[in-house]
């Protein structure tokens, strides 16, 4: 028989003014298992806690019930208290007779007292069923993985590395830099994007704690917080990185020309290439799909011209498995495929381009050397029309959300057009102008007032060609009249969407994603960089549309969270997790899809059955991943799965106690 001690707190008059605490203490003496019951003015005070500790020793108690305020307030206090008296912390149960009783039934003292008795009775019944639980420790590997080497990934890696942790950046492209590398100028300061990004890229590549793993992708993630075993596929570069000096002779001699992705297909690159001149690492890869040697077996010029013998056609994809303590995901965004907007003529008219094309057109190292020229004929456009919200805020055809950056970059583009082209006119079709951010509204006002950009509120219904011009037909909803503009060039502010394979990556790592495939944070307000998988953090636009300052801030936040985890060699795990009774488990796996943390797997066990060794499946809970929600237990028909500290039997004991 268990020996339960009951401690009723008056909380001054907070409880005692309504609930007859001495009476509750008296009645509790008759509850099954209770051997000691007492009331006290302030249970949480030093003397109150001493009273509990003394009673544990003198009365030889093995369970303690404290009836006081909400456990959300003082559960840690009383757990520590009983622990100090040599009792397992989880042998302590609380009955909430303040928030849930005295404070809400102030005028019904008798009934409040009766309710307090019931609450104590339930807590006693549960406490008797409580089992000792121990926090376990798991080792933490001091190494972080950053997935995606854009500005967010670079920032997170630098912060982690500066804090003394080893970081690997996995980047699927041949160079780090991401979208920011393609951008010409940044709003609202109009400083050159490359000028602020490339030093950071160099810092990352030269940092002793950072390893760049470019042209590589995450293949598989196993394990859990502190111990993620990540398989990385290093795609075959066909260039021996250890030998290549990046002299570039191979690139200049290569005869195969391909549209450059970095230049938004506005110019050509070679089949052996670096995406852009400042690429890091500045060593080329061979694009095997477009290389003459790989297509026909003939050519081999690059190999001939490379005096160092760095070209290796026989290279194969390599898989490496590394253990990481923490993962920061910073895979960024892509542009929305706006081909659904046939009315805008994208793809049909070369002079209808996207914002990212425009970035390359105005970039001094871009295909036009920074001269704004029409892709069709190279003429300098005079009338430029910008269409905002292409794909954003359009439930019917695009995405329901606002892409957040387009208002500002369109204002920036408008400014740059006016600055670079004399006598130019800029027209901007918009739904709303949203300029939340430091200095953003001022920038927008300047664009309108000083640069004279014409903002037209309304949607464009059609873009069509008439001679040399693109006719943009729309409506000015403020004036309620149709508008038609003869444009030389049309720039679409397309929505930001996550990487096409974002959901696949999320599934590999075991994190959530929303209906648009942006990764889901653990809590939208209080845990915006954490995910539901402990040890996995989010940075940048992979979590939702963001501009550069926000991405950088979130990256540093994610790095700080990861640092907190990596700074210790081991971490404590919550003992309230699901457990499997293997002897009952039939291995049906109905629990597996329920777990939001992918903490349940099926494993094969072998056992003796009628004189024969048989193998069978049973559920297996990964204690490092399980967060103790208990949703799986309900899916288990036979009750083989149970949640520690909230077992079926504990809950049933409370239900029974209520009704006795």
């Amino acid at each position: 028989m268990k020996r339960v001690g009951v401690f009723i707190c008056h909380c001054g008059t907070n409880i005692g003014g309504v609930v007859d605490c001495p009476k509750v203490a008296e009645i509790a003496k008759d509850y099954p298992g209770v051997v000691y019951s007492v009331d006290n003015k302030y249970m949480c005070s030093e003397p109150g806690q001493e009273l509990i500790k003394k009673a544990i020793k003198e009365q030889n108690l093995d369970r303690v019930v404290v009836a006081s305020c909400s456990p959300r307030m003082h559960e840690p206090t009383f757990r520590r208290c009983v622990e100090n008296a040599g009792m397992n912390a989880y042998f302590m149960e609380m009955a909430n007779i303040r928030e849930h009783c005295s404070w809400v039934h102030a005028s019904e003292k008798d009934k409040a007292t009766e309710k307090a008795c019931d609450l104590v009775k339930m807590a006693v019944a549960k406490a008797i069923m409580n089992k000792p639980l121990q926090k376990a420790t798991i080792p933490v590997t001091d190494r972080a993985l950053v997935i995606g080497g854009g500005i967010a990934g670079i920032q997170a890696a630098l912060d982690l590395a500066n804090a003394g942790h080893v970081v690997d950046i996995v980047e699927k492209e041949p160079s780090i830099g991401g979208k920011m590398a393609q951008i010409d100028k940044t709003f609202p300061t109009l400083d050159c994007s490359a000028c602020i990004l490339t030093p950071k890229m160099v810092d990352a590549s030269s940092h002793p704690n950072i390893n760049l793993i470019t042209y590589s992708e995450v293949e598989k993630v196993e394990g859990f917080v502190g111990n993620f075993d990540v398989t990385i596929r290093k795609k075959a570069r066909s260039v021996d990185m250890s030998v290549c000096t990046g002299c570039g002779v191979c690139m200049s001699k290569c005869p195969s020309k391909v549209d450059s992705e970095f230049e938004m297909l506005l110019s050509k690159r070679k089949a052996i290439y670096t995406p852009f001149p400042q690429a890091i690492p500045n060593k080329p890869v061979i694009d095997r799909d477009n290389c003459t040697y790989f297509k026909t077996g003939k050519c081999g010029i690059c190999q001939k011209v490379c005096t160092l013998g760095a070209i290796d056609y026989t290279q194969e994809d390599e898989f490496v498995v590394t253990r990481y303590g923490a993962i920061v995901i910073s895979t960024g965004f892509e542009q929305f495929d706006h081909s659904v907007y046939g009315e805008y003529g994208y793809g049909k008219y070369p002079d209808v381009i996207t914002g990212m094309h425009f970035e390359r057109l105005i970039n001094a190292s871009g295909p036009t050397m920074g001269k704004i020229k029409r892709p069709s004929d190279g003429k300098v456009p005079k009338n430029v029309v910008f269409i905002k919200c292409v794909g954003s805020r359009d439930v019917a055809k695009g995405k329901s959300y606002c892409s957040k950056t387009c208002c500002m970059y369109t204002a920036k583009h408008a400014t740059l057009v006016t600055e670079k082209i004399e006598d130019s006119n800029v027209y901007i079709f918009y739904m709303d102008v949203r300029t939340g951010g430091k200095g953003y509204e001022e920038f927008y006002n300047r664009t309108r007032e000083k640069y004279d950009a014409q903002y037209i509120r309304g949607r464009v219904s059609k873009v069509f060609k008439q001679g040399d011009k693109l006719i943009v037909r729309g409506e000015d909803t403020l004036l309620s009249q149709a508008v038609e503009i003869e444009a030389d060039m049309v720039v679409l502010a397309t929505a930001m969407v996550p990487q096409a394979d974002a959901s696949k990556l999320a599934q590999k790592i075991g994190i959530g994603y929303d209906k648009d495939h942006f990764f889901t944070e653990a809590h939208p307000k209080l845990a915006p960089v954490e995910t539901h998988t402990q040890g996995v953090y989010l940075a940048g636009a992979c979590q939702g549309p963001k501009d550069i300052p926000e991405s950088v801030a979130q990256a540093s936040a994610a790095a700080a969270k990861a640092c907190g985890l990596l700074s210790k060699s081991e971490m404590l795990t919550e003992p309230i997790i699901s457990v499997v009774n293997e002897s009952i488990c039939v291995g049906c796996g109905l629990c597996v899809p329920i777990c939001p943390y992918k903490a349940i797997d099926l494993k094969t066990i072998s056992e003796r059955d009628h004189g024969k060794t048989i193998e069978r499946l049973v559920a297996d809970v990964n204690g490092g991943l399980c967060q103790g929600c208990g949703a799986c237990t309900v899916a288990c028909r036979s009750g083989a799965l149970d949640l520690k500290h909230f077992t079926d039997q504990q809950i049933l004991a409370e239900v029974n106690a209520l009704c006795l």
Partner: protein
Amino acid sequence: MSVNEVQQNKEVEQNWEPKILVFACTWCTYAGADLTGLSRLQYPPNIRILKVPCSGRVNPQFVIKAFQKGVDGVLVAGCHPGDCHYTSGNYFTRRRFLLMRRLMEYIGMEPQRFQNRWISAAEAPKFQQVITEMTEEIRTLGPNRKLRDDQW
């Protein structure tokens, strides 16, 4: 007068008060009930809250069991969809209890006796209102005899 009615009258005479069991998830509804207390919003003293980590932990069998043992009403409450501390627990709760509620009603349990609500940690007035309404509804219905195990 049926046996049920005789029994009911007997209990009403003995100053019967509804007894309602509330399964509350730690993160939203339990915290909401705490806030109700902090705000001193008063409600009838007929409920007993049983804390569970997540509404997804509430096995429909607990509900039947509670009625067997003699409670007059059961409320299962948790975080609003999208707010679950564990991402998706309440979505499973919703599926399970959409079925369970219909099943209970189907076998003759008055729907007022078994309810489900989303109550967030901020919704103290809602908590107060739900408890007050439910208590009154059950008071009108009288003591529950259905599914009750007479041993108890």
